[in-house]
């Protein structure tokens, strides 16, 4: 009896958790009108705002030049690019200086002299030098669409927003089984879920293609140099302060990226995010959100990695109990509820993969659908592992500096774990 009650309670809780997550994940496709509203408005009339685009680069001499060149191709007429390089990274600095020499009006180089380096510190170093109305953040290997700035400009002026978040999309779904799932995660997040967050007034921002009005950013004190998820933290602080955030996603205007190169680097990246989410949760800025629903959403979103890990373990256990232990049939049926939501999620992921292929003109083959389904449980294990790892590290390393320096150490390893430092 007690076991039955316990199992039923857990099942119902899991069911609601999964149902809410699914509900939010599918936000953009609720109605054709919602879907249409997630896109950028077509810019009309001239440009009104000026941009300062921050481009932190660290041991990224190989890709930096191309990124800067592509940014310079932007159709917008009023922007500057500020490349931030470390004082201990002469190769990247040389590339940056060369780009600045070619176009001294629009490209500048700022040197970050912090002893231990991370992305928020680099961004904070550049913040006082920004001359534009809007500060935008990109990563050194981003492929940015030339029309993006004009659209963002229009989004700012037509909505009066304080923050505009553009879409970021991993593209190389064919590289490996986990990159397939990783791409799809991004797809659901930027295509759909983030719009819900914007609508509800609580949003963890992304790491790049994010644009903030310069005074707003300065007023907020820039980025938190001690937080492992400084982008999420910024979003939480700005939305808690009641700033208006607008999200827009156009498949031909997203910033394209690639998934981490190895499974290990994906695990490390995910650990860092999870730890960052934990830190943001513990900073409690979200408690200033005015609405109870908003606070619940914040609490839930920041806890998601851990709930995910938990449900990944509990769902199979639960089903096993239903099948092999002697519980009443009614209770056994209830234990299948979370499985039902999991299967609905699976189906929507399959459809999402199809839509992803259509949106980006990529050929998705049958084998990819198979990988998606078969890889699901394993990816769940990976996420659970990253969540556990994050908790363990956060518990062990109470000293934020140690953590940050650890990430800094990763940053010095070239290419292999380079992705670890970005989102």
């Amino acid at each position: 009896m007690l076991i039955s009650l316990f199992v039923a309670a857990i099942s119902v809780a899991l069911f609601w958790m999964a149902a809410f997550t699914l509900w939010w994940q599918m936000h953009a496709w609720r109605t054709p009108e919602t879907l249409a509203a997630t896109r950028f408005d077509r810019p009309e009339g001239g440009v009104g705002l000026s941009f300062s685009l921050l481009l932190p680069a660290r041991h990224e001499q190989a890709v930096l030049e191309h990124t800067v060149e592509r940014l310079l191709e932007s159709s917008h007429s009023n922007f500057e690019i500020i490349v931030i390089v470390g004082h201990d990274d002469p190769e990247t600095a040389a590339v940056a200086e060369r780009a600045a020499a070619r176009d001294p009006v629009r490209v500048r180089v700022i040197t970050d002299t912090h002893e231990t380096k991370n992305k928020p510190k680099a961004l904070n170093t550049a913040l006082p030098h920004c001359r534009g109305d809007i500060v935008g953040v990109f990563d050194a290997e981003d492929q940015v669409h030339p029309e993006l700035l004009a659209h963002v400009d229009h989004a700012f002026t037509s909505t009066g927003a304080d923050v505009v978040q553009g879409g970021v999309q991993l593209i190389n779904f064919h590289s490996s089984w986990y990159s397939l799932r990783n791409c799809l995660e991004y797809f659901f997040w930027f295509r759909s879920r983030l719009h819900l967050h914007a609508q509800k007034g609580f949003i963890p921002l992304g790491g790049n293609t994010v644009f903030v009005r310069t005074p707003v950013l300065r007023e907020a004190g820039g980025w938190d140099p001690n937080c492992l998820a400084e982008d999420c933290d910024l979003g939480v602080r700005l939305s808690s302060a009641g700033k208006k955030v607008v999200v827009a996603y156009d498949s031909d205007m997203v910033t394209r990226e690639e998934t981490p190169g190895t499974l290990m680097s994906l695990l490390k990246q995910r650990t860092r995010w999870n730890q960052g989410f934990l830190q943001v949760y513990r900073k409690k800025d979200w408690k200033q959100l005015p609405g109870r629903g908003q606070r619940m959403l914040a609490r839930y979103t920041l806890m998601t990695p851990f709930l995910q890990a938990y449900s990944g373990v509990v769902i199979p256990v639960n089903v096993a109990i239903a099948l092999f232990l002697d519980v009443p049939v009614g209770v056994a049926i209830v234990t299948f509820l979370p499985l039902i939501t999991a299967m609905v999620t699976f189906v929507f992921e399959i459809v999402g993969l199809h839509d992803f292929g259509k949106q980006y003109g990529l050929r998705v083959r049958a084998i990819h659908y198979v990988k998606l389904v078969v890889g699901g449980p394993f990816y769940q294990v990976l996420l659970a592992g990253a969540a556990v790892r994050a908790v363990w590290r956060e518990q062990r390393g109470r000293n934020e500096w140690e953590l940050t320096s650890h990430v800094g150490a990763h940053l010095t390893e070239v290419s292999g774990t380079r992705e670890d430092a970005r989102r």
Partner: protein
Amino acid sequence: MTTTLPPAPEATEPVSAAPAKATATTTAAPAYVRPVVRFRSSRPDLLLCGVLLCVILLVQGWNITQFPTLSDDEGTYLAQAWAVQQGEGLAHYTYWYDHPPLGWIQIAFLTWIPSLIAPETMSVASMRFAMLAVSAACAVLLYVLARRLFLPRWAAGLAMALFGLSPLSVVLQREIFLDNIAVMWMLLAFCLAASPSRHLWHHFAAGLTAAVSVLTKETMLVVLPALLVTMWRHSHRDTRKFAVTGAITACALIGLSYPLYALLNSELFPGAGHVSLIDGITYQMSRPGSGFILDEGTGSHGVLTSWLYYDTVLPVGGLAGAALLLVTVRWSVTARALAGPALVVAILAVVAMRPSGYLPAMYVIQALPFLALVLAAAVASVAHAVLRRGNWGAGQARPGLSTAPARARAARLTAAALLAVAAVGYVVPRWYDGNRAALTVDANAPYRAAAAWMQNEVDDPANTRVLVDDALWLDLVHDGFEPGTGAIWFYKADLDPAVAKTMPRGWRDLDYVVSSPTVRRDAVDLPNVKSALEHSTPVAVFGTGEDRIEIRRIAGGEL
């Protein structure tokens, strides 16, 4: 305050087009955008629907306990609902997967509160009132569906009236049949599939309710393709793949809960000593066919005749309407909007035509709302054709000849009025006769008398064993007979090993048989029942002829 971007005006146009051009195409391309019907905030709709609902409830509710004759099936479903209420499992005898149990679980919920207040009301005649709630829901849902399929207000009202007031509907919807409840869920599924907001979760819910409908009465399975067509037509190109796959997934997952239930009970596969889902399905699929519906003398033809006896307008007119809509689907906007319901009628008609199939009398119930809907739509199409089609030419005639269009218009109006008068003149007298019978005839006096006799004349009900059909079973249970082994549903005396075990001496272990038409009809194949009838003499007879009910005392029993 944070928000997403304000909605772009239908941003589905090719992005490559220049902005100005694109705006031009968005406004020009859809020549005619139909207004979205918001039922809840439309006063005329609410008023019309409310008035019709009152009339329908009055006609269906008046005399509901006395007409039509109580049927064994009604009794069975209610007895099973009673068993659910009592916490005795899914049936008053061993549940053997004859139908999915969801139907009578819902009846159990519907009748729960009245049966708590007054347990003796849990009998067929009085619980027919619960079916009024189902009828009301069906009628309102049909109106909403008609409006969501863009029928004009009068046509939606017509559909609702045809559905609720046809003598055939009045007779069948009064009865406690699973089909009536299944129809309600299917109508809800259609309404959700045609949701004006085209919401993903509305379509998802359409899948859920469709599954509930199928689990209420499994024959609804054949209607699902038509639901899919409706959903396809009413979803938006950009969100369709999510909406439709979501709905299919929801439907499949909920539908699978039934085999899952059987599996968890270890009753999915056949085996010795227990019932199983596979056995149940095998039985239903192998029921002897009732012949080709149009061959005179077959069982199916008899069923058809019984339907047409009550009403020809709805079945025949509905079929004709469906045919008209399906034929004109290329030209008529209405026909395209109504493709789903018309397809339902077509599918059900084709299934009924199978010569090898078994055609039960309640089969037509699942078609009734769709017949009404397509008939109303066909009438609307004809009205549109008579009044409007080709009107633009007349309207643009040269000013000098202004009398010609006026004359043409008058001719059109006259034609429409004549058609309407002819239709009303044809339908009203027939329906008046049919419904007068439903409102005045008392077909259940023998049953009531038999129930009263058993209550008053049997001295020791707790130790008396009676074979009875299910229409009276619950009455006997309320009188104090032992459910299952004292009050015995007559089939079980032969078909349920658990009951047969309690009567080792066959008919000699019984005291009475309440011989109703159903008992006499089916006793042929039931040895115990047959011999009980043979070894008994009537002690009371109610009614005359075929429909009489005899209470027979068994001679040589252990009285």
